[in-house]
């Protein structure tokens, strides 16, 4: 049980769980790459990007090996230009204190790709956050007991926090067909 420094997790995962790292982001050359979202430059972090299907395994690994047992925050970010949705899982070590450990998952934006296994069975606290990510970004979490819209009404179409969601006009009148 020890605290990990920023960026340390990636090298640990490379040696201990080599299959979980997402090979697309497996570059040693630089730690960050310029990416584009809505015409502006965004820097994508390379720290511990894991495959979507391996997230449960990695989460258990950091919990059991290093004591990162407190899943604090799940953030979805839409990188429109890259066609990516990134999920940032932030773990804390409740016993040691200290800063967070970020585990990332990058998946495509299309409905077939936008799937990440749910952490809710182990961390019930992820329940509402995953529902929020589903509601706002359309990330589907297989294994979630009740993956329904959380803020928007059930009949709502589209995912309002995605960058390509129209920000003008009255969505409600559009949906009801008035």
């Amino acid at each position, binding site marked *: 049980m020890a605290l990990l420094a920023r960026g340390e997790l990636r090298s640990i995962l490379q040696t201990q769980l080599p299959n979980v790292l997402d090979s697309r982001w497996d570059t040693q050359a630089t730690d960050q790459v310029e990416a584009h979202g809505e015409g502006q430059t965004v820097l994508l972090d390379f720290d511990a990007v894991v495959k979507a299907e391996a997230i449960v395994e990695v989460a258990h690994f950091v919990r059991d090996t290093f004591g990162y047992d407190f899943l*604090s925050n799940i953030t979805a970010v839409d990188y429109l230009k890259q066609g990516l949705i990134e999920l*940032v899982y*932030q773990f804390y070590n409740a016993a040691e204190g200290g800063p967070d450990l970020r585990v990332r998952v990058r998946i495509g934006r299309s409905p077939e790709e936008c799937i990440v296994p749910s952490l809710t069975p182990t961390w*019930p606290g992820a329940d509402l956050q995953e529902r929020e990510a589903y509601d706002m970004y359309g990330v589907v979490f297989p294994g979630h007991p009740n993956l329904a819209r959380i803020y*928007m*009404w059930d009949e709502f179409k589209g995912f309002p926090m995605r960058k390509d969601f129209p920000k003008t006009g009255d969505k409600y009148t559009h949906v009801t067909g008035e």
Partner: protein
Amino acid sequence: MLKTEELQINIGPQHPSTHGVFRMLVTVDGETLVDLKPVFGYLHRNHEQLGEVNTYLQNMPFTDRLDYFNSMVNNHAYARTIETLAGVEVPERAQYIRVIMDELSRILNHATAMGFMLGDMGAWQTALLWGMREREKILDMFEYVSGARMMCNYCRFGGVVRDIDDWFITELKKLMQGLPHYFDDFEGLLLNSEILLARARNIGVLPKELALAYSVTGPVLRGSGVAYDIRKAEPYAVYDRFKFKVPVGTVGDVYDRFLVRIAEMRESYKILEQALEQLPDATGGFINPKVKQQSLKAPAGEAYARVESPKGELGFYVVSDGSGSAYRYKVRAPSFINLSALADMCKGYTIADVVVILGSIDIVMGEVDR
């Protein structure tokens, strides 16, 4: 053999004790709760998207509206995030001022939250109104420094908007003369009241083993016996300079949360005393003058900063694309995530307990429905 019918009842969205427009779809067997589904979204205004449209400074007053009881804390957390992102130095005096405001917020939040919880329990507003009286006094002081009682909009990047002066400090000292009396009265009123014990002991138990898995934070987590306080675990501002204790419960029931909140008010009081003592003079300034507030541009990257809000871990996760506004702006709202434990905590108890358990989590719908 007679079989009892299960009954579905909607508690809310218009109900006296859902603390706002919150709905719980409960299934009861007699009075025993079988299932509970929380329903959100009645107050949803897509705060996070507003944060992506606004400039960094413009977003500050919107954070007031999250947890409208503790706008000072929200400002602090948000300012810290942007300061981390943009690498802004904060003068020491500003840090102390922020700590003072945070701890005052904690006192006022706990005073009213406990009052509301007791109100849900049926104690007719007495504890609440005594708490409101203390809250009024504190809000008057907030009004004096920030210009508004609840929507303070007080922090700026690299400091606070206005310095505290002698008037504030004398009034704060006067307030602190009265606070221990209030704590004593409050404890004496209900802490050992047999009815409160009957209603609060062993109700809504969230065991220590499960508390972390439920991602609950703040008094709910500490009430379950996990001594995790961000002020100690990852000290921010100047919290590492104060001596204070982290109160924890043992069982994790409503009563423990209640006791932990009262103990936290007393600890906040100690922090206030020390902060007043250590407060540096005004030579260092109360705001970093180098920061261009209106046209602040953060380098591309991401930042997450969190503070111990009275309700739990309040964090802002901001991704910057180098422009003047956030590319992604996410709020880790404590009362929202604490709610994920509600359904399981209520299961097996009666309907009357549900409102008490909800009250003991201490939610604010402005934060839950963002």
